């Protein structure tokens, strides 16, 4: 130690707990290590991807023929409601929080998150509300059936009159999920603001951290509004208030404002980290610096700001005054500008690069392609006349699945493959990964591309039966959905077998730049401990003969020898 008044003990977060298990059992315990929590989040959420996928396949099985024959229409309502809820609150938010836990501390050179115990508490709320939601399948009346947006008056009807009902449990689960997300957001934002490595100014920070920061800022601003709306809805449902009951002076449209004030930005909570993943993966496998780093970074907060003032475009057809429609149509169109900045920057990064088509790169290329398509249908939907025509049809369903599955989930898979060697210490099997990509890409295209046509022809969403003229599009879509189910097999096989006995991974298998790649694979409990590299450049200096940190050779050697 050269410094005289430096006490290395202050770096130690209050863990690892003495006597805490160091084997697989630590993943089942209340562990405060961000890397353990990250893997806990990702494993739990992938499990619920299977559950949500199974619900989706029952829905698609029902829709393979025009009449409602496979399941009862009431059950069908419960199925799509729970599919949406599970996918958002039990798959996407947790999986992204998992990536945040793994990537943010390692990328900025912090030993752990700012509040390790709060972090663990945020994770352990996930199984609690997961059990609540899953349990609602087994109570009288079944689970919530009002769709994932839970609009009144349908959501406050309670036809069976039980005090404990599916909708009430749904609201409690959403509230718990909100608390968990807020705990997470406070932690991520504080960590990014306060715990960066020496020399890492904001404009030397990896883009994943920029986008995660933006996304968590949206959580902090938007989620409380949804929580407020959910509390009022719960009071209406269970305690006889009339906030959203017109007969008592209430206003059902107010709920829609509360809901979409959060739930539109929630899409950006999910897509922003994926923009970060795109930026990391494209530069690494195209071996080129990121085009327009500063603009791509700042565009993240452009998106954060605009995402908070566009929510009314979900309500164009629910009695919104015309001046409001025009205003929100305009803001909705504007959001294409910062998003376009990012898309053009990625294309310019890829342009003329020598692309290595590894599994993560393939997933990102597929995701980007789908995202551009989804962006175009998004601008269409933001236009008032088109929206009023296709609102509540399968065009909307196809559009948001193109965003959420075809772009976001593909990006999440890319991240899982790209950082798998870093955090498990094993290489995945490239062949299985590529098979997973092909099945996923073909499956998701077959599943949602035809539904745009069905929607334009006027097929309404959320109905178990439909007119036989839409049959062909639905048959193709269902084949695609089952293909996505099959795609889970090579993925699970790959993850389990390569973690168990895959070849050992070197510290930096991809030749990538970034603090996380200067750590051994898997990184030790406290990452760099008290020897954090001093950052001098942003992590996108591919082919520029510049190093990201002072004494880079030393850190590379150290990681190899660990």
């Amino acid at each position, binding site marked *: 130690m050269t410094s005289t008044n430096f006490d290395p003990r202050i770096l130690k977060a209050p863990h690892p707990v003495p006597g805490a298990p160091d084997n697989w059992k630590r993943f089942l315990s209340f562990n405060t290590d961000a890397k353990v929590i990250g893997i806990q989040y990702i494993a739990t959420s992938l499990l619920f991807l299977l559950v949500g996928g199974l619900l989706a396949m029952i829905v698609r099985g029902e829709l393979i023929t025009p009449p409602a024959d496979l399941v009862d229409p009431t059950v069908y309502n419960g199925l799509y409601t729970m599919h949406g809820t599970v996918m958002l609150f039990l798959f996407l938010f947790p999986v992204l929080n998992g990536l945040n836990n793994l990537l943010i501390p390692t990328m900025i050179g912090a030993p752990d998150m700012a509040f390790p115990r709060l972090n663990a508490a945020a994770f352990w709320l996930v199984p609690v509300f997961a059990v609540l939601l899953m349990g609602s399948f087994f109570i009288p009346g079944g689970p919530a059936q009002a769709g994932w947006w839970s609009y009144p008056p349908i959501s406050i009807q309670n036809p069976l009159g039980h005090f404990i009902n599916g909708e009430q449990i749904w609201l409690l689960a959403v509230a718990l999920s909100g608390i968990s997300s807020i705990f997470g957001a406070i932690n991520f934002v504080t960590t990014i603001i306060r715990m960066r490595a020496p020399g890492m100014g904001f404009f030397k920070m990896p883009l994943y951290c920029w986008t995660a920061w933006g996304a968590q800022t949206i959580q902090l601003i938007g989620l409380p*509004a949804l929580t407020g709306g959910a509390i009022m809805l719960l009071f209406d449902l269970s305690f006889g208030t009339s906030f959203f009951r017109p007969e008592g002076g209430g206003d059902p449209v107010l709920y829609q404002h509360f809901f979409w004030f959060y739930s539109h930005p929630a899409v950006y909570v999910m897509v922003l980290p994926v923009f970060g993943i795109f930026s990391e993966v494209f530069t690494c496998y195209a071996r080129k610096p990121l085009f327009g780093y500063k603009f791509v970074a700042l565009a993240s907060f452009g998106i954060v700001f605009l995402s908070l003032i566009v929510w009314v475009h979900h309500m164009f057809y629910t009695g919104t005054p015309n001046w409001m429609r025009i205003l929100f149509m305009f803001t909705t169109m504007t959001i294409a500008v910062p998003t376009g900045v990012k898309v053009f920057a990625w294309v310019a990064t890829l342009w003329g690069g020598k692309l290595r088509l590894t599994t993560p790169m393939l997933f990102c290329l597929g995701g980007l392609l789908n995202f551009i398509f989804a962006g175009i249908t998004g601008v269409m939907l933001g236009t008032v006349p088109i929206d009023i025509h296709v609102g509540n049809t399968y065009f909307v369903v196809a559009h948001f699945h193109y965003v959420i599955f075809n772009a976001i989930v593909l990006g999440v898979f890319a991240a899982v493959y790209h950082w798998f060697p870093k955090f498990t210490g094993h290489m995945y099997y490239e062949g299985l990964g590529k098979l997973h990509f092909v099945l996923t890409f073909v499956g998701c295209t077959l599943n949602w591309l035809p539904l745009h046509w069905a929607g334009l022809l006027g097929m309404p969403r959320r109905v178990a039966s439909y007119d036989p003229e839409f049959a062909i599009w639905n048959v193709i879509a269902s084949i695609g959905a089952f293909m996505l189910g099959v795609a889970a097999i090579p993925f699970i096989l790959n993850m389990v077998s390569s973690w168990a006995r895959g070849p050992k991974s070197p510290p930096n298998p991809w030749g990538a730049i970034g603090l996380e790649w200067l750590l051994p694979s898997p990184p030790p409990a406290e990452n760099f401990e008290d020897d954090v590299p001093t950052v001098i450049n942003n992590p996108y200096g591919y082919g520029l003969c510049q190093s990201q940190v002072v004494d880079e050779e030393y850190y590379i050697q150290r990681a190899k020898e660990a």
Partner: protein
Amino acid sequence: MTSSDSSLQLNHTPGQVKHSGHNLTGFVIFLCSESIIFLAFFAGFSLFKLTSPEWLPPGVDGLDIKMPLINTLVLVSSSFVAYVAERYLHKGNLWGFRIVWLITMLMGTYFVYGQYVEWSGLEFGLSSGVFGGTFYLLTGFHGLHVITGIGLMGLMLYHSFRPGNYDKGEMGVTAVSLFWHFVDVIWIILFVLIYVWQRY
């Protein structure tokens, strides 16, 4: 750790980062986020007040303002008292801090008591239209925050008796004090919306 391994001797000076004192940053972020719930409730209240055709339920002719006004004065001044307590702590006067901090807690408790007296004298309930609903939702949710604040202050008071408690910093007193100011500011907005606005 710089190991004694010869291959690692590259004239390397370890980069050092001190990681402490994030608690206040995290707490301020939490308060900003928490204020949005109140903002949502205030927005809902204002919308109902402006658009509802029958605002007051039958048989109710508004709220009495006298008792809540006394309550407001007590809560607002308790914020200044909390600040005085904090000053004592900074000067190292531990007993001064404890006594003034306890006075803040008692003023908070009086506020909750006043709220209870007001609630028990009202002729409308939670289900009396949006007027009753928003009134109890806003005052109740705020009251929960006051009770939480008193609880947190009690915890700080208890911790102050631990020997050497303030060796490493103020140990959460600033955060709790900030929370108390937050609860106070929210009440001022709430008071203006619910009690003052009804006259106009």
